[in-house]
């Protein structure tokens, strides 16, 4: 298998924000580099978790890491590796709290975001439950299209993946799905009100 490497952190950041192929390679790099995915699996197992716990923690960590990069919350004040380890440690604590809420879990001094609070970027479990209910009303096609849009896939990539006839058709489809999403939210002021109290 081809070994992927990113000599500089900025190369990995560019790949994570790049084309579909570049993103997939970046994800592959996380699996190949022993200091990333394997580090998480080992860390979780040393802390008493199972291999599956390690995989779950890695999944959550990568999702949060990717989001931090995509939304510009990583500013290069620490190396990407250190930053990712911080996120994984934090996710492991969150995972244990979620699995065994009564167990006392030590507080970590490091949070996923070294430049500030991660709270705005994290989506709490309570909010996830409420939002998941709303999401079902959007429909499967729109869920996928909006997901691709949110990950900053280009219209050309969306066209190719979904088999649309042109970039414009893809853009129109995404637009109409986002409008549908807005309507779904506006039609449920009760849920919106509930969300205000679940930050």
């Amino acid at each position: 298998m081809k070994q992927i490497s990113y000599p500089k952190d900025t190369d990995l950041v560019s790949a994570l924000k790049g084309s579909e192929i570049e993103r997939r390679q970046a994800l592959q790099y996380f699996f190949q580099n022993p200091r990333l995915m394997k580090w998480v699996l080992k860390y979780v197992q040393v802390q008493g978790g199972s291999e599956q716990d390690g995989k779950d923690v890695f999944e959550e960590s990568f999702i949060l890491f990717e989001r931090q990069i995509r939304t510009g919350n990583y500013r290069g004040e620490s190396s990407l590796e250190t930053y990712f380890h911080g996120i994984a440690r934090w996710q492991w604590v969150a995972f244990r709290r979620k699995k065994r809420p009564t167990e006392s879990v030590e507080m970590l001094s490091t949070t996923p975001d070294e430049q500030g609070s991660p709270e705005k970027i994290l989506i709490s479990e309570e909010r996830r439950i409420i939002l998941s209910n709303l999401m079902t009303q959007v429909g499967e096609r729109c869920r996928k299209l909006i997901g691709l849009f949110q990950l900053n896939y280009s219209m050309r990539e969306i066209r190719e993946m979904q088999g649309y006839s042109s970039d414009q058709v893809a853009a129109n489809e995404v637009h109409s799905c986002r409008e549908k999403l807005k309507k779904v939210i506006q039609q449920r002021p009760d849920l919106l009100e509930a969300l205000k109290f679940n930050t």
Partner: protein
Amino acid sequence: MNTGDNWYSHIEDYNLGQLPADLKAQFETAMRDDEALQAAVATHRAEWEMQELMAENLLRSQIREQFETLGAPPGEGQSWWAKNWKYILTAVVVMIVVVYGILQTSKKTPETPAHILPQGSPVDTTPSVQVPIAQTPEKIPVEDAPKAQDRRQLAMSSYRIPESLSGVRGQADEDTLALASKAFFDKKYRIAVRLLTNLPEGETQDALSLRAHAYFNSGNYAAASRDFLALEKGGIYRREAEWFGLLARMAMPNPDQKTIRLELDKIRRQPNHPFARDAEKLWRTGF
């Protein structure tokens, strides 16, 4: 100091935690006095978070795909087939020999059945769910068994769980589709099939796609092929179904090889087809 409408341009930065501390404090003061701004912030945040959850679903499927193909240490995270194929192959060979021996000895039934399932049996009530995996190869004619094994293994090695399947994740916990999806990702394929015996209303395409893959992974290729054929008729899974349906038909005993080659050729010749590269790879094996 910002006033009036200016605050609305800061909503995104506020929700992403990107406002400088002093501006953030001013924004929160403005929000306390302005209910409309408060509502706009809440709506924007809900919209952004829902979009993020949808993006998460896509990423999750990519990560799981990697775990299945690249990241798992030897013997871990592999599919059930990949782990156990040697045992299955041995069991199949023994069974073929036993069945052949019984047939030769008794000479009561000179021919083995030509197909597994009766044609035209209703999709939703198919009894094939109950058929143990190991029984399937018994029904392959003995002369064709090695070739059928090759084809099946080729089909299985070309198979990857598509990312679209993760799109059914994240719904209400008690939802049948969510339960079936969980069973599927826990590799409890028969449970997933059983849960989806009747397709849930409003999520038919999702459910049908999930069931087709569950059938495939449980070794019931005939039923998988039927579900994929239904998906090929239209909808967002059409292109996926063309590819996975082809693999299912390939894995069935006595497939029409000529038709399968034509289908394979058609897919690989479409540069925009999401499985064109996989089809090309399979084509090069000389199937």
